[in-house]
């Protein structure tokens, strides 16, 4: 999390830290047996990673502590529309992991709500993105945090994000396309953003006294750069698939 703060205990109880093949990422608790995350990194060379390669952590804000109580995956369900062999197509970047054992909720572990019917993604509304990812960027130097960080970033209008994407493509090849299943969030001037290590984690909106999972940290061009917004999976588009997958499994 670039430009964020340490999350006090029990403030983001749905936060999950995922290690997939030793790569740190995020996720969010949505039910006592289910973690929602992104599909990328869960598919390796067109096939799902083995459940044994996945370690799941939750309930603490400190990496040293959270690592003491790993949970394990029973099954992985990536969205059937996710097809990204060359890392240029992040459409349908969503996945569900079923836990081997259910968790009991308390102050430190609590599910985040799924998007309500007809959820509104209003431009400018501040969303809470959190993770254990990179916190500082330097010329040759990155800093990975051991503490859960969060930052509030506004939801960006689709037109503005699309405009930015055009400029990204001018600067660099192999920039993924934006689709309707994505939205952008971040500061025009940079400074506040999610980054490497936060990927697959939650972007939460607060409405009617509840946090709901509006987005999943998906991809971006750099982190915290001026005019480079973070791109998130638009969870509200996947309610049917989420409910169906959980019911069938």
């Amino acid at each position, binding site marked *: 999390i670039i430009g964020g703060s340490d999350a006090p205990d*029990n*403030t983001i109880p749905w936060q999950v830290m995922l290690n997939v093949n030793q790569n740190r990422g995020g996720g969010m608790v949505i039910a006592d047996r289910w973690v929602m995350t992104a599909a990328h990194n869960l598919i390796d060379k067109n096939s799902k990673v083995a459940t044994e390669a996945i370690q799941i952590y939750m309930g603490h804000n400190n990496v040293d502590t959270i690592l003491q109580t790993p949970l394990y995956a029973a099954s992985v369900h990536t969205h059937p529309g996710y097809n990204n062999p060359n890392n240029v197509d992040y459409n349908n970047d969503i996945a569900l992991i079923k836990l081997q054992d259910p968790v009991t909720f308390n*102050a430190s572990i*609590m599910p985040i709500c799924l998007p309500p019917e007809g959820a509104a993604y209003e431009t400018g509304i501040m969303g809470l993105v959190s993770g254990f990812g990179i916190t500082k960027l330097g010329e040759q130097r990155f800093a990975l945090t051991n503490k859960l960080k969060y930052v*509030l970033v506004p939801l960006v209008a689709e037109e503005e994000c699309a405009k930015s994407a055009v400029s990204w493509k001018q600067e660099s090849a192999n920039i993924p396309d934006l689709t309707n299943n994505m939205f952008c969030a971040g500061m025009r001037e940079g400074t506040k953003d999610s980054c490497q290590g936060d990927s697959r984690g939650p972007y939460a909106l607060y409405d009617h006294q509840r*946090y*709901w999972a509006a987005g999943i940290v998906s991809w971006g061009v750099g982190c915290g750069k001026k005019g480079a917004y973070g791109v998130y999976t638009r969870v509200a588009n996947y309610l049917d698939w989420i409910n169906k997958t959980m019911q069938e499994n």
Partner: protein
Amino acid sequence: SLLFPDSKPVMHGEVLSPEYPQPYPPNLQKRWDLSVPNGYQIRLAFSHMDIEASAGCYYDSLTVLYNEKVLAKFCGQENSADGHHPGNQPILSPGNRLTLLFQTDSNNPEKHQNVGFSAQYQAIDIDECSAPEPRDGSDSLCAQICLNTLGSYICSCHHGYELRSDQRTCALSCTGGIFDEPQGHLSSPGYPNSPPHALSCQYVISVDSGFTVTLNFSDNFHVESVDTQQGPNCLYHWLQVTVPHREPIKLCGAKSPGVIETNSNTVRLDYHTDDEGLSNGWSLDYSTQRVNCPPPSKVAQGRVTPMLAEYFYRDYIFVRCDQGYKLMMDGHEIKSFSAMCQNNGQWHLPLPECHIIDCGEPEPLLNGGLTFLSGFQNQYRSVFQYHCNEPFYSLLGGVNVSFTCEADRKWRSHNDVVVSPTCLPVCGKPIKHVSGIQR
């Protein structure tokens, strides 16, 4: 001959004159020997008679004989004044045999062809007992009691006597009488007349062990007593009443003992007289009553049925518990209870107890718990309420429902629901918030 070895006794039959209903031939001498079993006599009735009439039935005749003695001689027609015919009157034989002899002469009247006769006979039981006493001083059929039977009779004797081997006369015998009917009558030999001297009679009344015997002596009681300084004494004549496990009672005098409740199912009466003195004896009716069982005590939280003023041998009682209570006996639950009053005056089972039922531990609620609102834990009418571990879980539907332990031993809500509710996770509501918008 008086014996007819070839004739087989039958109970009824018919006799027809030769060639009847055609005219009978001349020069006939036809004989029929009728017999029925011993103890029966023959009743012979003519349905038609048409034999040539003559004075004294001189020419043609039908003669009826018993033991070759002529009982009657018939001729003529039943509607005619000529001859001698029986009409509708049947003939009764003195014994079990009868002979008919039909004789005709050589001539028959030319104008009228006589057809003879048709007759039916049947065996009639002889009531030997109604025969008058013989006047010749010989013995009557039975010395005491005569009982007619079909084809015979039997003799019997009054109580206190037994039939001798001659099957006719009776000898005094008053020992070994056992009375096992629920009620009866017995009396001393010859009662109310004075019996022979030196009697030693024994009577035993023995009924089922669940009954007790009550003796009811008639007023006419007379057993010789001897006046002594200590008062009347049953010295030479007595009637002794013996009940098991109790002192025997000797009775004598002229005053009836009236009613004696023995409280036993067995009573022995010994009647003794010596060679002298005079006792006219006694008689009594005995009856039996079922033994009593004690009234059952009350059962707390239960009911004993039926409620009767008294309980007797073979009566049943049942115990039912009030709603919410169960029958317990010897620490075990029983489905039903009944007990019978035994012949010893005791109930065959002790009364059970009624214990309050228990619905067992309520189903635990995942991510929740329960709180008892009233009653002793798990017992009938106890009430509890489920709750979820708030604020992380909330009850499905959001309404707290109370469960009550009902009589069917199930925890039920007011809506008759038996299943426990569900605790749903609360989403998106952390107990602490990140510092949001700050200036």
